[in-house]
């Protein structure tokens, strides 16, 4: 008989004592070629900023390879591909990274460049999972099987828009223009 999986519980209001890393926001180190910031804000159903959330991202390298033993295409380099950024009082967060390459999708399809995103917060009994796609990859986005499976009027919630030093990606937990969240 399979073991009972341990349930999720909220991260609570005080996670920042334990889950904040000095280099957390840096999926790639400062000075990396082509690096930029993804900046955004987490808001609640009243449009109010969520000051006690943490945003985590996971992604492939610019060649579309994950640094992981289950991706044998990985080159064994030190690309971390993971970032973790708590929100500030104004609900904003920032992730320093590079654009991932396209990666394989189901049934031989290609997935457009994207980041897997977890958002944790007080008041979230489980993380919510979403994806960052890039608005300036229109052709690849049009062929992406995950985006294709979404109602057209909600796809834009997953598109990071070009901004001054990178991209802008807001997370609306609830209400108008609610971000698409996935069951994984």
């Amino acid at each position, binding site marked *: 008989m399979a073991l009972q999986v341990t349930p999720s519980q909220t991260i609570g209001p005080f996670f920042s004592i334990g889950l904040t890393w000095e280099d957390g926001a840096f999926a790639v180190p400062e000075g990396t070629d082509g690096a930029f910031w993804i900046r955004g804000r987490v808001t609640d159903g009243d449009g109010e900023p969520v000051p006690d959330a943490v945003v985590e991202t996971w992604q492939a390298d610019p060649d579309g390879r994950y640094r992981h033993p289950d991706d044998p295409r990985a080159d064994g380099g030190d690309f971390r591909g993971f970032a973790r950024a708590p929100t500030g009082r104004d609900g904003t967060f920032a992730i320093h990274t590079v654009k991932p390459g396209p990666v394989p999708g189901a049934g031989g399809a290609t997935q457009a460049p994207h980041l897997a995103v977890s958002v944790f917060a007080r008041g979230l009994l489980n993380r*919510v999972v979403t994806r960052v796609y890039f608005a300036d990859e229109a052709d690849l986005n049009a062929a992406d099987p*995950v985006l294709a499976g979404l109602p057209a009027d909600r796809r834009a919630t997953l598109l990071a828009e070009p901004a001054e030093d990178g991209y802008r990606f807001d997370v609306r937990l609830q209400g108008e223009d609610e971000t698409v969240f996935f069951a994984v």
Partner: protein
Amino acid sequence: MSDTTKPQAQPDLTPYARPEEGTNPPLLYPAYASTVRRAPKEPLVWLRHTITEVTGPLLGERRLGDLDHDLTRHHRGEPLGERIIVHGRVLEGDGRPVPHTLIEIWQANAGGRYRHDGDQHPAPIDPNFTGVGRCRTDAEGRYRFVTIKPGAYPWRNHDNAWRAAHIHFSLFGRAFVQRLVTQMYFPNEHLFFQDPIYQSVRDERARQAMMSSFDLSETVPEWALAYQFDIVLTGRDKTPIDEDH
């Protein structure tokens, strides 16, 4: 591009099992008041596991100090309270251990107060206790922390609300879908009946999976009592089905 003289290895894309209904709490659970304006209203969109979801960050090797697992030795003096050992294994649903995976914990001190500016309830701060620990599991998925038993503490969710004593746990496993943040509880706790965070897990067997057990065998005589807490992450889905549903 690829070197055609050697066979191109293919990633292992076997999807992971989805937790059974009742294991994870619902996102909207009004008894926990903060869920009301933060839980998404739209239904979650079912996502087929791709290489993005079955891989994940393997962290920790260069992130740990020698004493990170011993929360009683992070300051000059020893913290006040009941010294305890918290140990266990990290497993997948089929019992297979999860080796070399990062575990992060944080908790209140013995008086029920967090070392956080947002915690202003009138219990003393312990200058010798930060309440933050990290370790990695060994090759068999085992881990061990030394810490102080955290106190219960009041919060403002409802009239005379108290959180059952708990330690926060954060785990990565080896895949994005295995990421887990949970709370470990203690047996013989009186406060579960009015703690909506604990109660939000609706299935009794799942609730038991958040409960540590007193473990006489790992106690250290004249030094510390021990509690065992095994953590089970979802594992690869063994049923060879087409994931389209």
